[in-house]
């Protein structure tokens, strides 16, 4: 059983697991996925890429930002059977650029960009709130365990 206590203006409730076993009766307002005010995920409702998505980290804004945008755009709009197979030129340019900045783009990520990008597309299309489920390690969150925050690294 839950216990309730009052300490002045503050109310304190202790609950057991059983107390919270029944579903909540609290009502939440339905979300509008195309709300312009909301922080968007990787893909906007219009189908375009949101370059400002926290999940991309600094990829679109760094020295190789232009190359990255070209490559990812090409990949995103690619209609080939093997998605992105017509974008090799852009990916090569991107890798070339990244190699010039080993500090920013660690070398082990060399082969990964194309795979990572396809992963990103899949996962972010599945989830509504991309903040908590990004699995790109491009620019990981900093201090708190909750990846939800919009922390930039």
């Amino acid at each position, binding site marked *: 059983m839950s216990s309730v206590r009052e300490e002045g203006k503050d109310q*304190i409730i202790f609950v057991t697991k059983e107390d919270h076993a029944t579903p909540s009766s*609290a009502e939440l307002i339905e979300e509008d996925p195309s709300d312009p005010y909301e922080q968007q995920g990787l893909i906007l409702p219009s189908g375009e890429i949101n370059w400002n998505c926290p999940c991309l980290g600094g990829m679109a804004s760094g020295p190789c930002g232009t190359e990255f945008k070209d490559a990812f755009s090409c990949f995103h709009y690619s209609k080939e059977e093997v998605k992105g197979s017509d974008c090799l030129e852009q990916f090569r340019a991107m890798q070339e650029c990244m190699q010039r900045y080993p500090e920013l783009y660690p070398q082990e990520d060399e082969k990964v960009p194309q795979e990572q990008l396809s992963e990103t597309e899949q996962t972010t299309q599945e989830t509504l709130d991309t903040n908590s489920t990004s699995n790109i390690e491009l620019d990981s969150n900093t201090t708190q365990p909750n990846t939800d925050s919009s922390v930039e690294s």
Partner: protein
Amino acid sequence: MLKCRTVWKKLAPLARDSSTLCRQDVRRAGLNNGSAVRVPAAHMSSGSAGGGGENKLYVLLVGAACLGGGIYAYRTVKGDQQRYMERMAEISSRPHKAASQKTAVPAQSEPPAAAATETGTVPEPKPGAAPSPEEPSPAAPGAEAAAPSETTEPPPVDSTPASTKVPSHAPYLLIGGGTASFAAARSIRARDPGARVLIITNEPDLPYMRPPLSKELWFSDDPSVTETLRFKQWNGKERSIYFQPQSFYIQPEELNSAENGGVAVLTGKKVIHMDVRGNKVKLDDDTEILYDKCLIATGGVPRNLQAIERAGEKVTKRTTLFRKIEDFKSLDKVSRNAKSITIIGGGFLGSELACALGRRSADFDLEVIQMFPEKGNMGKVLPEYLSNWTTEKVKKEGVKIISEALVKSVTYKDDKLEIQLKDGRLVKTDHIVAAVGLEPNVDLAKSAGLEVDSDFGGFRVNAELQARSNIWVAGDAACFYDIRLGRRRVEHHDHAVVSGRLAGENMTGASKPYWHQSMFWSDLGPDVGYEAIGIVDSSLPTVGVFAKATAKDTPKAATEKSGTGIRSESETEDTAVSPVASSTPAPAVEQQRDNYGKGVIFYLRDKVVVGIILWNVFNRMPIARKIIKDGEEHADLNEVAKLFNIHED
């Protein structure tokens, strides 16, 4: 012209007469020897008056007048030209004197180009010397005289390298080099391809994040942490506090020439004046920079106690106002040498530093004291019962807490600082850390004509973070309108990120208001780790829903959950054994009741939830954010608490 003609007409007969007279004189003179008879006839035909002598005088006078006039005219014209040349030379040398390094350096590095600008053929964008190019252009000969004198004049050595780095125009100008500024830079670059962003900061460092300065950096095992400034994240990976390494940025002098633009950081420079009409700012070295869009993200300066400020140099020298990297470095050094450190302030920063230093106290034989006016740690944030509980936990970190302490005066005596409290208590210590709040930096408000908020401080901006056309403000310095929660000013890291990003979006054409609510967090020892969102003010009525402690809910579990480095394994074994049992002889039920292991606390304003704390409960922030966004009146908050599933991991 007509005047000239009339004058000429009048003078013409006179001239004719005088010339005839001259000729006649000559003839007369010449013919005096010859026949004098023929002369009168010639003389008569000219028809002019006067006898011979008078004519002579007349002629002489006119001639003299003409000559005098001619000489005067010649001298005046020549003198004017001379003066003009001198003036031109003086003007073109003036910008040289005022900012001699700027004109001299390009003059030195590109002598032909400099000469060309002097002659006014090519309007070159000389760094900072905007007014001068126009003036030398008309005075070609004069300027050429001036140019060689400029090139030979030796420029002051120290300012030469700085001047070359400053572009005269930056499409996106960000004043301040902290978290908000960096977030805005990133946002601008993501949305505007090829954007050229210039960040100006008066710190010597590139943009970095502050939270680790009072948390993770203190728990690092690396002895060179004060140099590397690297820490371990929750996922085990190490990173630097700098958002990006040097290679991410481009040099300021490359800003306008880089093909795809970039972000340039100008360190060690302060913007002292802002001309909104002219769309330009002036730095402390008199450089002017034009901008298209400007962000003010000047953050703030730590407040100090009056008692310390008027206590004299001996006291202020032993006081740290903690905010920057250099403060971290100096406090680290102090903590290794001093015997006693007192932290004044019981809020986030004060409590975090107290815990960090408290943890060191055992290793370094250091006494750590924390004093504040409230009854317990985080007294302004947590409801009283939780604040008291937290204070006990902080004490376990090795901190001596002096609560309800108001500082009356501080003096330096016998190589110690003596803090006299208003209730008579005296505290002796070696060093003081003052964590008593932040004063937002609104120095530019006056020159820019920007409004300052009298309630919260900071620049007053609208819901879209805009102060005036082309000027936005983000971060600690922004007092903004929050559509849901009302006007406020937030001094947290995540807010700086969210507001910086939003400002960047709006600077690149979006018109989005502040909507995604930022969060904040704090860790105080192995048992206290929380995340919060919205207005979390202890003066509001609260409803706290806590999980009844079971054997499974050990602090060690919380350690793994939060994953932060400060929860060391050894300490948790210790505290798990004897939480409250030793202090209260109450039955087991009571013990559990007072153990606020994990839960959710709702802060209410007019029955609407405006703030939520997730107490030792993680990965639930989206739900909290949703509840605040909805802004609904919930009849039973226990039902709302169910949404958080606090009993699960």
